[in-house]
């Protein structure tokens, strides 16, 4: 079922890419939602994204069902295995353990701004990055990427110096393609900042450190 829907989404994706290329020659992108309804190309892109997302949700559902049956069969100390496994996974998500894996390393030397860095992070998250550091600072959900008054970028309250090096663990080809596509983020940065030195290199294995700060809840309480 999964491979079937993946195939379908790939077919749609190719079709959408074709349409987008055609559309680039024909029309200007910024159109008002209030004046125009959703275009066919846009519909297809939404369909393709929903197909992919539903496949991922089904995958998650199957994994949860497997987990549930593990817990239902486990008694006493046998619970330890699945419990620790779950704990480790969520710690990876939270950036609170050291991780290793393949991915891409992006190096940027130039006067890019904090919004550019935030866009880069968003782009990588959009293509499934699993763990990410900037100049060795691990990004968590709560990480703040901002700049000082003189324009230096800070991550997790640590001031970074150039070049900015992003290490991203995930599917290397997917991330590389997304970053380097025509009209993509790197191309836009190169257009906006003359003489910007950028490289995107695939890596077989990188080791990313954990986030060392603490995340405390003062205002939010869980709902049972």
């Amino acid at each position, binding site marked *: 079922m999964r491979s079937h829907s993946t195939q379908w989404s790939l077919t749609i994706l190719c079709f959408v890419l074709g349409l987008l290329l055609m559309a680039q020659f024909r029309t200007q992108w910024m159109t008002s939602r209030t004046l125009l309804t959703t275009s066919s190309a846009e519909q297809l892109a939404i369909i393709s994204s929903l197909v992919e997302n539903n496949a991922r949700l089904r995958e998650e559902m199957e994994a949860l069902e497997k987990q549930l049956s593990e817990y239902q069969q486990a008694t006493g100390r046998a619970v330890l295995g699945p*419990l620790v496994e779950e704990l480790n996974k969520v710690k990876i998500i939270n950036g609170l353990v050291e991780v290793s894996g393949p991915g891409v390393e992006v190096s940027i030397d130039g006067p890019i701004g904090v919004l550019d860095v*935030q866009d880069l992070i968003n782009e990588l998250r959009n293509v499934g990055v699993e763990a990410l550091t900037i100049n060795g600072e691990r990004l968590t959900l709560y990480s703040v990427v901002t700049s000082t008054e003189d324009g230096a970028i800070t991550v997790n309250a640590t001031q970074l110096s150039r070049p900015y090096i992003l290490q991203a663990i995930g599917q290397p080809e997917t991330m590389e393609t997304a970053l380097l596509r025509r009209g993509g983020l790197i191309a836009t940065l190169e257009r906006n900042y003359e003489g910007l030195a950028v490289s995107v290199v695939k890596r077989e294995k990188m080791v990313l450190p954990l986030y060392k700060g603490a995340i405390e809840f003062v*205002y939010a*309480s869980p709902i049972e």
Partner: protein
Amino acid sequence: MPGTEHESGALAIRRLEAEQQELKEGIGRIREQLDKNRRELAADTEMLKEINMELERQKMMAGLVAVTGPGVQVTLDDSNIQSVPATADPSAYLIHEYDLRDVVNLLWMAGSEAIAVNDERIVATTSIYCVGSTVMVNDTRLSPPYLIQAVGNSVAQEDILSNPAYLKEIKRKAELHGVQFKVDRVKKLTLPAYKGGFPIHYAQLGD
């Protein structure tokens, strides 16, 4: 734009969204069931109980737990001006995905502890992007008005949002073009848990 094709596209989107909704609800239910089972099983020994407590704490950080607390609600909406002057840039009358991203980033900067946009909880893997003019969060289609709810210190949150150094473009669009940008303090917000997956296929524990 061929009418029937367009209509079948819209139909496919609605069908896929219904399926997405169903899957998310299913995931939410099974996670609740898991939490219950786990808690019962872990009650056996002190060590298991401790590990489970740690797991619940980590899940709260990841956005896998619904939360309640004080904070702010930010409303963003496209301009309601009916006729955009022919010479004007229509995009100046709209809220874009980067506007939402900027507000969310500022809210984290203000120390927010949990954020949701139109009931989609923001988590570590969330991207806020657009397909044409449609905003997608957690691969879910959102439509305006956008309600950003953030649990945290509402004074710090409000201060940062009203600081003239930030959100310059949104504030200009609000002033000149009728785009809506509103911040309300709320005593008690309720944010849903994230109901998607966290696919981890490449990252491994340790080196």
